């Protein structure tokens, strides 16, 4: 856990659900809010989120209605100077299989460096929640050490993802075997902001985006390791057609013992203007697939109020149904002194409105 890095846990969103109703009605009601962390009765002590009973057993279930009580990973928020992360279970999955890590440190010269890692556990594999947590923690710790020792961010990112892959691979031998399921596996996306540049690395379909303050010029920085992305890349399908296919979200790259070969992608980006780099799992981007659509829901003040922006995005995804776990990390950026006049990289997917002309 990245506890030694000076980050702190935020207080849970206050929420009181003391109810006199029968548990059944509460259980059936479809929630739209992010998950509460702990609900405390007026007199103190936890209260069941299902029926309001004030008796929670040692295993974390209500002694009256049996409902599982919120677990720490159901909703997590961490905010540091320079990087913020929020993760939520959503409403359709019973546990949060996403994990994230955010950390801040400094380069040997004293300039600040921040790191964010977001991982999405593969549900069809065994113990996906452990895989994502292990990968996020391992990559984050690796990056912190590398940055502190002055390593070049890009090779450090590559090595950090390989270290995370190794850790997830080891997990396969550390827990109970489920013969009918695959080895623990997860995706990873990570961003480093240091020395005026943002370095992004990823495996799988968790994404990174760049949203300048004015939003024009929003772009996706990653290309999914997914069936749909492959189809589009190979020119076999239009993007809309590919993403409408049932196989669209089948990932073609992941961390895990059964991954044929882990090939981390990395890209380095010098922000041309002030804005935010956002990394997230598909629990968020599923609802706003393009950079333009997602950029439209990212709060305008995301750079100055990154925690509120991340909370807001999680809330929006929950309102849309919260079909998957949702994890968002936000890295506010200023215009980079290294920024040359903007040139789209081959990975960039610039969004141009009708008639809009981009200044190059």
């Amino acid at each position, binding site marked *: 856990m990245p506890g030694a890095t000076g980050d702190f846990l935020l207080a849970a969103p206050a929420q009181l659900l003391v109810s006199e109703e029968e*548990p059944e009605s509460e259980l059936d009601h479809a929630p739209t809010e992010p998950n509460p962390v702990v609900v405390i009765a007026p007199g103190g002590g936890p209260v069941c989120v299902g029926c309001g009973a004030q008796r929670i057993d040692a295993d974390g279930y209500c002694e009256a209605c049996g409902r599982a009580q919120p677990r720490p990973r159901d909703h997590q928020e961490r905010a540091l100077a320079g990087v913020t992360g929020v993760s939520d279970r959503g409403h359709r999955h019973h546990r949060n299989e996403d994990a994230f890590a955010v950390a801040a440190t400094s380069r040997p010269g004293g300039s600040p460096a921040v790191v964010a890692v977001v991982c999405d556990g593969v549900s069809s594999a065994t113990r996906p929640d452990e895989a994502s947590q292990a990968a996020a923690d391992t990559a984050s710790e690796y990056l912190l050490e590398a940055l502190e020792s002055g390593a070049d961010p890009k090779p450090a990112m590559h090595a950090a993802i390989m270290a995370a892959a190794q850790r997830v691979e080891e997990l396969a031998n550390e827990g109970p075997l489920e013969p009918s399921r695959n080895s623990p596996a997860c995706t990873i996306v990570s961003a480093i902001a240091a020395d005026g540049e943002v370095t992004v690395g990823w495996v799988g379909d968790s994404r990174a985006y760049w949203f300048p303050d004015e939003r024009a010029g929003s772009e996706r920085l990653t290309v999914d390791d997914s069936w749909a992305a492959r189809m589009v890349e190979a020119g076999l399908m239009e993007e809309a057609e590919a993403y409408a296919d049932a196989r669209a979200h089948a990932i073609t790259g992941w961390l895990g013992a059964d991954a044929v070969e882990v090939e981390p992608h990395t890209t380095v980006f010098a922000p041309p203007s002030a804005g935010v780099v956002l990394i997230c799992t598909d629990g968020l981007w599923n609802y706003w697939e393009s950079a333009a659509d997602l950029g439209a829901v990212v709060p305008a003040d995301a750079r100055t109020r990154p925690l509120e922006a991340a909370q807001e995005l999680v809330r929006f995804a929950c309102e849309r149904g919260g079909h998957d776990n949702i994890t968002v990390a936000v890295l506010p950026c200023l215009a980079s002194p290294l920024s040359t006049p903007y040139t789209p990289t081959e990975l960039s997917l610039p969004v141009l409105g009708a008639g809009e002309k981009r200044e190059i």
Partner: protein
Amino acid sequence: MARLAKSNLPQFAVDIFQNEYLAEGAREVNAIVTVTATGGGTSGSVSAQPVNFADGPDAAVVIMVDCSGSMDYPSDKIRAAREATAAAIDAVRDGVAFAVVAGTHEAKEVYPGGGQLAVAHAGSREEAKQSLRRLTPSGGTAIGTWLSKAEQLFHSRRDISIRHGILLTDGRNEHENPNDLQRTLDRVQGHFTADCRGVGTDWEIQELRRISSALLGTVDIVADPAGLADDFRAMMENAMGKEVADVALRVWTPANAAVKFVKQVAPTVEDLSGRRKESGPRAGDYPTGSWGDESRDYHVCIEVPSAAVGSEMLAGRISLVVPQPDGTTEVLSQGLVKAVWTDDIAASTKISPQVAHYTGQADLAKAIQEGMEAHRRGDVDNATSKLGKAVQLAHESGNEDTFRLLAKVVDVVDPKEGTVRFRKNVSEADSMTLETRSTKTVRVKKTP
């Protein structure tokens, strides 16, 4: 895990096997609960280590032997019964309290007499065997009176916690109103356990099963009286291996949930649903009797209120409890049965291999019982179809013992399809053996 203060008591482990994933709207949760008791110091086998007798064994046994007139026809039955009782007496451990009762239309104490239990040692065992000459056939059969007598004898030593009966009969309970027998069973159940044996083929399976079920024991046929001695010895050794009595399976369910059934499914099928005793808010105890070093499986089926996809609830908390002298109960071990609603169809449609297996074993027992019942009514078509299904289930699940018993009653044409023909001239002994042992199950085959 909880530890009892007394030595030589087994440790209980509870393992839950289930697929906790439910489809949207689904309400039924099924789980197999494997309870394993280990480390009791004895296992009921002859080679078992002797227990520490410092405090004397905490066990009593009463052997009830049918001495109705029919035991003399043929007379090798009563001779075999005497020999078997002698073999059982030899297997009684030093210090165990015991008695022998002769059962007819009334119950007579054969040994030691005077409404007492004897304490086993070389001398008392010899005396008891000598007294077996007094097991002479004459009179009728009223099993309720035998059970009442056993109850009285156990009551003379209320300090003893493990109380077990062995009951042998060769005929129907002809000299007693079935309601009287039922009343006796209602009164004595929970006070002692008992294994029942029918010798020959003139006794009634349902009747003896009702008794053994009520008294949480086994029922079996000894078609040939020559086999009685071995069987009695084995039963007594099994009884001597018991270390803790009055263990109950406690099932807690949440508000608005209901227990649909609780069945023992291994080593035999035994529906315990009707035996529930409320033991607290939303909790009930199901008696399991005495335990030595052994393992049993239970199938628990719970109906829960349906919840939204993404919800998780505790559908049941299953614990093993044992009463304490001060009136409280001690929890020996426990496991959790969960329900998780998901829209992942692959997850929710997967049936737990253990649940599937024991559902099949319970169906197998039912198919045999229904098939034999149909055969008695002369409905050969129905009987053939039921036993065909039984053959199929026994074959699929690898229940070889039951398959062999079935093959003595029907010709198996195709075990996979369950195609069978009733054999001509099936012996009464084979029919009764099949039906009596229909509830014997096998455990889940290990997956490779």
